[in-house]
């Protein structure tokens, strides 16, 4: 098996999602190649990304809900203690950076932090393990060539997932900006700054410049949120894949690769936590800015 696929194929295989959509011949089904997946266009869905993100998100809400449902004011048990510790940590962060009053920000910060962390955590699972298992299952249950079963394990290496979240945050930013500042205030903020003028003529001249600058500023928020997370995790995943390539290079290279994988995984623990934390903190900060009259 290993000798039939090239290094490029191996990497490509690892970076392709299991895509369900309309094939070129008009039938609906899973894409059998990377090219076919990209030809499916917009009306296709990444089964693996959806599965892992919903599975991990469901795990998160179930565990936390279980702890919350039985939460008492008395002496907390192990799970409740852990959940309370996490929530206290989030709450402190929200209180530190968010000055307005809004009930949705803290739960959203909690969701982002834990969900992103769990999705990132999948990066630490050896890169071939789950895709191999899924390929084997696919061959067993659906009689398909395991080479054509694509399965990406880390949802946050799929820009759809990161953009999905950041666009959610972006919609809330716009919603709260308009709600707190009014439509006029929001547009004023977009067009009346950073170049201010008393003169109406100058105002008109500054209008497009300001709109361009503030527009970029506004659009940069969701872009930076999602691309930062995606980029970090994608790069991390790529390095894991490259390290995994060393296993086919003989015993010495394989042992060296194992050591490297361990080191990178340890380092990556920091990265995945940090990325989840950054996403959360920036969300809080952006929403705080949406609540401020002038910044």
């Amino acid at each position: 098996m290993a000798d039939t696929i090239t290094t490029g194929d191996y990497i490509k295989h690892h970076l392709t999602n299991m895509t369900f959509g309309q094939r070129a011949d008009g039938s609906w089904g899973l894409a059998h190649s990377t090219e076919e997946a990209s030809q499916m266009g917009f009306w296709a869905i990444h089964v693996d990304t959806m599965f892992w993100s919903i599975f991990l998100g469901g795990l998160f809400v179930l565990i936390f809900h279980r702890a919350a449902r039985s939460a008492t004011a008395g002496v907390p048990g192990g799970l409740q203690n852990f959940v309370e510790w996490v929530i206290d940590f989030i709450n402190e962060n929200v209180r530190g950076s968010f000055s307005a009053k809004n009930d949705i920000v803290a739960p959203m910060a909690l969701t982002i932090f834990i969900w992103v962390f769990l999705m990132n955590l999948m990066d630490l699972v050896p890169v071939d393990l789950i895709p191999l298992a899924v390929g084997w299952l696919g061959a067993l249950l659906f009689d398909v060539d395991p080479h054509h079963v694509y399965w990406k394990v880390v949802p946050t290496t799929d820009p759809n997932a990161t953009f999905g979240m950041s666009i959610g945050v972006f919609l809330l930013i716009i919603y709260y900006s308009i709600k707190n500042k009014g439509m006029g205030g929001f547009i004023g903020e977009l067009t009346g700054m950073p170049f201010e003028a008393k003169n109406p003529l100058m105002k008109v001249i500054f209008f497009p410049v300001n709109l361009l600058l503030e527009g970029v500023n506004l659009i940069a928020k969701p872009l930076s949120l999602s691309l930062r997370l995606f980029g970090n995790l994608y790069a991390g995943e790529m390095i894991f894949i490259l390290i995994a390539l060393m296993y086919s290079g003989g015993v010495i290279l394989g042992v060296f690769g194992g050591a490297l994988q361990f080191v990178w995984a340890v380092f990556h623990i920091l990265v995945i936590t940090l990325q989840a934390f950054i996403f959360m903190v920036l969300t809080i900060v952006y929403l705080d800015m949406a609540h401020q009259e002038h910044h």
Partner: protein
Amino acid sequence: MNINVTLIAQLIAFAFFVWFTKKFVWTFIMNALEERKQKIADGLAAAERGVREQELAEQRAKERLEEARGKAGEILAQAQKRADEIVDEAKSDARGEGQRLLHAARAEIDQEMTQTREQLRGEVVKLALLGAEQVLQREVDVNVHNESLQKVAAQL
């Protein structure tokens, strides 16, 4: 790395998880935390109140003790006084009784003396009459000379 409908699905999933967390996780935990905070604050306040109450009780007990001590002294003094009074009374009673007994004895002695004297007087008269009869034989009639003899007897 294709942007497709997954994005919208992820957006919906994200919204759902946020909603679920807000509705079924955050509120419960926050309530529990708030409740516990209140409980701890109440407990601390109660402890403080307890300490203060104990101090108060100690002070009260001390006051009571002092009061009791004072009362006991008072009662002791009163009892002493009463005992003295009783002893005095008894003394005076005894003295009175003694006096009374003495008087009674004296009276009885006097009475007995008088009685004895009367008896003796009667005997003497009888003896005198007997003697006189012997002397005068029949010359003295008891009936005739009784008056004079009575006079003599009275003078004895």
